[in-house]
């Protein structure tokens, strides 16, 4: 059991560290995206319900003028902009953004810099930017984490006696204590987060049902495609579950001018803001409301209406009426992604995520610290070389991924705004810096490598507001004055991390080899 924990933890720990660091960061996906886009007001929130009818009038007028022949369109209402999307007679997609009050055409992109933003960390967290292969790899690493957690509990033996024990400045003892404290105290979170992560991609791990019923060999693909036999069957099953009579048909030429009144009605019936309306290519017309309470873990499904009959009227109907099993899975993914409980949960998930990172990092370091005391000679004559490689992989996976993450934010401000494909270059910079940290760790003596990479990470974190000031004129003080707390938070968290990395770097540099 001890060997399983040691070697399983080491080999899977390298990737697990990167996945955990990215996962911890992407709790604050929204603020990071706001900071990187250079436009902190990106997420305007819903349009108040009483303005829905007027906004719909504006949107409909534009649509009638710009696309009189469209049969497939979508209107999304937000506080500051109406987002329109439609397909013309040749099925080419068009988009436009309007001011909800004046109807004036707004710039298409609400981001001042073309960027993937925090979504880079989300994508890397679940798939390492490597498609289905990456998702499968992350899944195996997650399973290994569950194995390491359970075997760790068994190996530990003194969980309750050492529950509060942290002895510092005692070499190997301190590394073990830190490893134990970080993992034991956050164990409920760690078990929850690894298990729920696997459930999100259940289609990958248990594809047989989807393959059997819908003839789609890889389960995930069935879910990712917008139109597939899987989703058609889902919709039909949902229809049966709701037991609604067949919808009376809409008038042959549905007048768009009837829509604002329907939006007004929907607001009055539910008391919730209208999220938008859409006409699908099959002719069905939908109206959706903004979800009422988004802090509960199990939340009421957000209300949708289907427009039916002549004259057109609202009929409450779910777009997909999910089964209990699917709802359960939905709750598990809300839990994993911290999409409930507001900022309290975001911060708790972040802190517990940091504790998870500390658990993995100290575990990896512990492996080499133990063998520095006395070589276990597992690899015969090659042992020193293998240890050297393990040490380098430790440096790159622990310090390197942190350096790459902050370098990604730097790349966002350094890469010219007008450069074509700059969003891709930001991600490339992230991956290239990570690769470079491995090279650096292989070339430098290990203690120097640790100190230099942690030191550079600290420097980049601490200088982030300066870089922002010299490239955009913004910095955390200015964000605070303008009330952009999300962007403010990004820089303050970067500064805090920078301070901790400085401490770590100095500590490593001064340690006796």
């Amino acid at each position, binding site marked *: 059991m001890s060997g399983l924990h040691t070697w399983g933890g080491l080999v899977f720990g390298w990737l697990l560290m990167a996945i955990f660091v990215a996962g911890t960061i992407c709790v604050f996906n929204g603020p990071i995206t706001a900071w990187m886009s250079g436009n902190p007001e990106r997420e305007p929130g819903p349009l108040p319900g009483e303005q829905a009818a007027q906004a719909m009038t504006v949107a409909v007028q534009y649509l009638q003028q710009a696309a009189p022949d469209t049969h497939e369109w979508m209107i999304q209402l937000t506080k500051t902009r109406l987002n329109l999307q439609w397909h013309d007679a040749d099925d080419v997609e068009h988009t436009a953004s309007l001011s909800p009050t004046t109807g004036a055409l707004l710039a298409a992109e609400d981001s001042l810099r073309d960027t993937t933003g925090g979504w880079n960390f989300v994508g890397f967290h679940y798939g390492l930017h490597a498609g289905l292969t990456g998702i499968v790899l992350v899944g195996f690493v997650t399973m290994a984490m569950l194995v390491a957690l359970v075997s760790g509990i068994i190996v530990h033996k003194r969980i309750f006696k050492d529950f*509060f024990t*942290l002895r510092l400045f005692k070499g190997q003892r301190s590394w073990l204590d830190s490893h134990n404290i970080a993992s034991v105290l*956050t164990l*409920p979170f760690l078990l929850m987060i690894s298990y729920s992560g696997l459930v999100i991609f259940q289609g990958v791990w248990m594809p047989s049902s989807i393959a059997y019923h819908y003839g789609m060999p890889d389960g995930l693909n069935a879910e990712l495609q917008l139109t597939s036999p899987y989703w058609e069957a889902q919709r039909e099953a949902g229809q049966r579950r709701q037991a609604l009579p067949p919808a009376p048909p809409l008038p042959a030429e549905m007048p768009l001018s009837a829509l604002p009144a329907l939006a007004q009605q929907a607001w009055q019936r539910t008391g919730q803001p209208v999220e938008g309306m859409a006409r699908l290519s099959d002719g069905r017309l939908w109206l959706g409301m903004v979800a009422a309470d988004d*802090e509960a873990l199990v939340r009421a499904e957000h209300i949708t209406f289907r427009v039916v009959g002549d004259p057109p009227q609202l009929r409450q109907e779910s777009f997909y009426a999910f089964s209990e099993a699917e709802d359960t899975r939905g709750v598990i993914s809300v839990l994993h992604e911290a999409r*409930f409980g507001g900022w309290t949960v975001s911060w708790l998930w972040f802190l517990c995520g940091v504790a998870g990172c500390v658990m993995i990092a100290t575990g990896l370091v512990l492996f080499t610290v133990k063998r520095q005391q006395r070589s276990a000679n597992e690899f015969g004559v090659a042992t020193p070389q293998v240890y050297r490689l393990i040490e380098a992989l430790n440096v790159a996976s622990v310090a390197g991924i942190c350096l790459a993450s902050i370098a990604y934010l730097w790349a966002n401000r350094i890469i010219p705004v007008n450069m074509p494909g700059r969003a891709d270059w930001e991600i490339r910079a992230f991956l290239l810096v990570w690769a470079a940290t491995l090279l650096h760790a292989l070339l430098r003596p290990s203690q120097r490598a640790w100190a230099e990479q942690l030191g550079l990470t600290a420097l980049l974190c601490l200088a982030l507001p300066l870089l922002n000031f010299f490239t955009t004129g913004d910095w955390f003080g200015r964000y605070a004055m303008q009330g952009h707390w999300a962007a403010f938070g990004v820089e303050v968290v970067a500064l805090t991390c920078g301070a901790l990395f400085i401490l770590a770097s100095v500590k490593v540099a001064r340690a006796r080899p």
Partner: protein
Amino acid sequence: MMAVMTSFLLSLSAWLALALAMQRHQRDVLGRTLPPPRARLLRRIGWLLLIASVLPLVRHWDALTGVSVWGALISPMALVVVLAITARSG
């Protein structure tokens, strides 16, 4: 916010009581050990406070949300107690 703060304080005191019910940490913090009945009392108070710390969260949201938040909230509080004891014992 009040609910979360209350829960923070309750779980913090819970962990502190549970830690002080252990002889090792009595020596760390108080410099002496407590008589066993005292330690038992502390342990009971600790458990009660820990269970009580879920209540403000359940009231603020609902049972399921409250318990889920609680599962992650008590961990950082335990870490605070560990760091405090470590700092105290040098």
